[in-house]
């Protein structure tokens, strides 16, 4: 049973026709794939932007209900259309197979065919089919001609392509996006900026969909910047708070570093690969690879071993065909792209913005900074996996950076006490796992983790948001506790998500996705040693994950009732009615009144509310939690490991075509051998889970947190270091910011630089120059007239003054044609003479001394003519010097010379001087 099977059966059930409210929609028509006109994709992308416009412009007039309908409606419809498009995609995978095996194949046969359809390699299809794969696309218009070289360009199309990779991502983004929109309706129910919020959120979805569906790096980059903008706007959503606004700016600046990498990587790909479009790039890479294969078969060098791949580019015939496979350029491009991914996906050392980004409203943290945007880096790696897989060094760097980030962030998360901070570092850590997957050549495993993580992490963030919403904006776990009885739905869903993220064996999706990554690291093909190292770091990180997530869960939901209520002296009776011992009536309202009161954490009507899930806003919030928690379990089905099913996971099979895999390049025998490592590798993961969770339970349940206190007291320095997030922010401050600040006390300019960052330095210098220029504008008309006169004189002086002449050359057969640049009223004298063959140095002046030219050759050259060309025969190894004297209308002269050497197709030309 895999995805195509399901779709096939759904299709069979629906009979290609669905009846909705009496309207018969012919599913067959809607899902019919015409190659480039599947306009549903256009609607999917553009609906959210329409929502954003409506909310952004008329939000206030619409009122809350209207904004919710427009915002949720746009994304929800987009989600429904995404499902439709996804099934269309599946069907398009079937169609050729059905055609091949008979139109009236039974469901079982069709499913079988579909399976094969998706495993192209098994059917030995043409290279074209392999490369293009299954896809649905929408190509409405040519956008603009983007340059790929000095005089070459590629037409960038407004083209959206749905293939298995973007299909899965599309479902995640629109699906989780819809849930979070619903949640936001509850979460933002008391915030005055709700229209703005929904407009930004819709804008984000729009940008993200461009990123996913765009068929070229240009569209991807546009989406990439768009999500960055939306993220910036949403982090600083409560910009009145200076710290929040600063967090927004920090995210912005750190991401600029990453984006610069992405942009440079893109440029190299365009320059060396000659294209921005993924498909074309894939063709180019495949051609280079095919040429290599042919070569190895011809020379009998053996299999297409991945270890040998870096040398592909060093073979000239292929290098000229496909420069991008050259390890220098291609590797550099991939490395730079990876820098971009590090920025967006918060990898070391560019992760610093993500924890601060939690300043934004919680739904934003869930959607953008956990489930979707931050996975864009992994998405990009998967999208270009066919390229990355050729550069093993870069892949190793990716794996190491991922492993280090996973471990590093996990250690920080252990000590954090704020719910969202823990989740933020946990996100960084989990993103590290995904990068491990990509780096060890298991892109689909990394992507599977993206998929499962989206559900359980979004669920946890939303759960945290629900806790904060219900507890007066508290998120310090020391102030919480015992919430199980107040927020039962949140409790259960959070529990499921926690069990998933810590990798509870066999039932939860997190287990399968993490396990697949660890296994692939363990079974690493091209550098086994590195694989083991990464595996070890991964297991350690998983242990820590298991520990800190259990810890947070225990401290928040189990144990005695919320600490802040106890501190305030409020006790709650069995029915949830509060009795205050401290101030009798100050907080003595019942919990059901609290939704009318409102507690968004920003109004602060009641500093110590009794947590409850009763209000309508809370109901809107907990509903998505249930869906997400369910998905956190169900998603397991897509990635059951090989040892259970004797197949690759369903998702991996589905992604087989668009996403490369290190296993593709090893022999069947090696692959089988590697699969035997699956179960040994799994013990590491299970061990990590057991140790971490067990430790947490022992420390925080049995011992009530005593060992943790003792540990922190025993190792106070280490504890405070980790608590302070390894002081990385401080390190950056020390290494980058502080020295500059010291300098700044001397130079006021640099003060601006430090405070407002690089952008402002440029701004400041420019501003300074502007202020210097500004007084020119005196206001007196006659001064302006004088400027015009002076300007006119300067221009006259320029025309009278220095003539300039530049030579260019073209070799035509046995003659070199030297051409002098033109000038108004110029006349020229040409002369040529034998170059000085005994010159000691090889400079033009030594070979063709200008003094000699002016003294002898030019004096015989006759009077000036307007001839700008001179033909010089190619002869003699020492060469001939060609000199031109240009004289402008006012008698000023300039010289330029060239050395013409035979047997050398090029000539040396230097511009002349007076």
């Amino acid at each position: 049973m895999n995805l195509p099977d399901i779709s096939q059966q759904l299709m069979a059930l629906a009979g290609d026709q669905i009846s909705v409210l009496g309207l018969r929609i012919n599913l067959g028509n809607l899902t019919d794939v015409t190659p480039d006109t599947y306009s549903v994709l256009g609607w999917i992308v553009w609906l959210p932007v329409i929502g954003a416009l409506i909310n952004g412009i008329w939000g206030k007039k619409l009122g809350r209900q209207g904004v919710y309908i427009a915002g949720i409606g746009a994304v929800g419809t987009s989600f429904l259309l995404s499902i439709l498009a996804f099934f269309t995609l599946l069907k398009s995978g079937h169609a050729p197979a059905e055609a091949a095996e008979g139109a009236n194949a039974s469901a079982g046969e069709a499913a079988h065919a579909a399976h094969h359809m998706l495993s192209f390699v098994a059917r030995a299809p043409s290279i074209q089919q392999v490369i293009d794969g299954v896809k649905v696309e929408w190509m409405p218009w040519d956008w603009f001609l983007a340059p790929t070289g000095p005089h070459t360009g590629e037409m960038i199309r407004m083209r959206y392509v749905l293939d298995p990779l973007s299909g899965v991502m599309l479902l995640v983004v629109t699906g989780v996006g819809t849930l979070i929109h619903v949640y936001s309706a509850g979460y933002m129910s008391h915030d005055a900026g709700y229209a703005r919020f929904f407009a930004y959120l819709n804008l984000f979805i729009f940008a993200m969909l461009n990123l996913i569906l765009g068929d070229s790096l240009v569209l991807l980059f546009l989406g990439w910047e768009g999500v960055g903008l939306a993220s910036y706007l949403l982090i600083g959503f409560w910009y009145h708070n200076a710290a929040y606004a600063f967090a927004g700016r920090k995210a912005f600046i750190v991401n600029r570093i990453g984006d610069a990498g992405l942009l440079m990587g893109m440029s190299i790909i365009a320059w060396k690969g000659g294209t921005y479009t993924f498909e074309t790039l894939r063709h180019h890479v495949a051609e280079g690879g095919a040429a290599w294969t042919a070569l190895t078969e011809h020379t009998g060098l053996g299999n297409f071993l991945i270890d040998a791949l870096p040398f592909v580019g060093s073979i000239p015939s292929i290098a000229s065909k496909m420069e991008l496979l050259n390890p220098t350029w291609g590797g550099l491009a991939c490395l730079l792209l990876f820098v971009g991914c590090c920025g967006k996906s918060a990898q070391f050392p560019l992760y610093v913005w993500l924890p601060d980004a939690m300043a934004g409203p919680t739904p934003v943290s869930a959607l953008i900074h956990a489930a979707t945007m931050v996975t864009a880096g992994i998405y990009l790696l998967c999208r270009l996996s066919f390229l990355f897989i050729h550069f093993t060094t870069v892949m190793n760097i990716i794996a190491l950076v991922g492993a280090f980030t996973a471990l590093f962030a996990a250690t920080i998360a252990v000590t954090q006490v704020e719910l969202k901070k823990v989740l933020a570092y946990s996100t960084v850590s989990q993103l590290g796992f995904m990068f491990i997957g990509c780096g060890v050549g298991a892109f689909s495993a990394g992507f599977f983790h993206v998929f499962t993580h989206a559900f359980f992490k979004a669920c946890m963030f939303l759960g945290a948001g629900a806790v904060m919403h219900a507890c007066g904006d508290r998120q310090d776990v020391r102030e919480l506790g015992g919430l199980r009885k107040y927020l039962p739905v949140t409790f259960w869903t959070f529990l499921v998500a926690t069990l998933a993220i810590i990798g509870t064996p066999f039932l939860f999706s997190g287990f399968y996705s993490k396990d697949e990554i660890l296994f692939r690291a363990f079974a690493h093909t091209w550098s086994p040693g590195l694989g083991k190292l990464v595996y070890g770091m991964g297991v350690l990180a998983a242990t820590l994950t298991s520990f800190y997530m259990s810890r947070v869960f225990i401290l928040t939901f189990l144990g005695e009732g919320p600490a802040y209520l106890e501190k305030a002296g409020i006790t709650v009776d069995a029915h949830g009615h509060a009795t205050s011992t401290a101030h009798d009536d100050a907080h003595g309202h019942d919990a059901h009144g609290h939704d009318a009161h409102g507690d968004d954490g920003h109004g602060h009507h009641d500093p110590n509310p009794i947590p409850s899930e009763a209000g309508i806003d809370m109901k809107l919030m907990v509903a998505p939690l249930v869906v997400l928690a369910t998905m956190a379990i169900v998603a397991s089905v897509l990635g059951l490991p090989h040892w259970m099913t004797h197949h690759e996971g369903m998702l991996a099979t589905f992604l087989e075509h668009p996403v490369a895999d290190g296993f593709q390049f090893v022999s069947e025998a090696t692959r089988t051998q590697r699969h035997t490592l699956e179960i040994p590798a799994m013990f590491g993961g299970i061990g990590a889970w057991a140790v971490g969770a067990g430790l947490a339970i022992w420390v925080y349940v049995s011992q009530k947190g005593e060992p943790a206190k003792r540990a922190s007291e025993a190792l106070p320095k280490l504890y405070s270091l980790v608590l302070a997030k390894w002081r990385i922010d401080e390190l950056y401050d020390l290494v980058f910011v502080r020295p500059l600040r010291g300098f700044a006390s001397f130079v006021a300019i640099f003060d601006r630089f430090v405070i407002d960052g690089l952008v402002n330095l440029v701004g400041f210098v420019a501003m300074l120059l502007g202020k210097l220029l500004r007084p020119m504008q005196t206001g007196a008309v006659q001064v302006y007239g004088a400027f015009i006169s002076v300007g006119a004189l300067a221009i006259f002086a320029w025309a009278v003054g220095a003539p300039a002449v530049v030579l260019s050359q073209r070799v035509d057969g046995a003659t070199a044609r030297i051409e002098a640049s033109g000038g108004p009223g110029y006349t020229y004298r040409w002369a040529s003479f034998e170059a000085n063959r005994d010159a000691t140095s090889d400079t033009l002046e030594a070979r063709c001394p200008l003094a000699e030219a002016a003294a002898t050759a030019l004096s015989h050259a006759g009077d000036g003519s307007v001839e700008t060309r001179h033909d010089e025969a190619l002869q003699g190894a020492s060469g001939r010097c060609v000199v031109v004297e240009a004289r402008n209308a006012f008698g000023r002269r300039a010289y330029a010379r060239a050395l013409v050497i035979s047997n050398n197709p090029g000539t040396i030309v230097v511009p002349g001087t007076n």
Partner: protein
Amino acid sequence: MTLAGCLTLAAALFSLGVYGLLTRRQAVAVLVSVELMANAANLCFVAFSRFRGDVTGQALAVFALALTVAEVAVGLALVILLYRAHGDTRVDLASEMKQ
């Protein structure tokens, strides 16, 4: 009058116009200076037209004259505006907007 004489006169008039434009304080005098410059050009046209025996230049000069008249009309209206605003017609009064 020789061609060279005409040209010298035209150049002198033009320079005088530029000088006046840059130095005279009264708006009307500045206006006159501008007209001097335009008419220096017209003089050139007429002179070359005559020495070339071709009427194109004279035709152009007639057009140019008509246009400069229109220009003067607008200019004087603006001088009146200046007078209304400041009670005087010194051009340096019009230097409120700057930088």
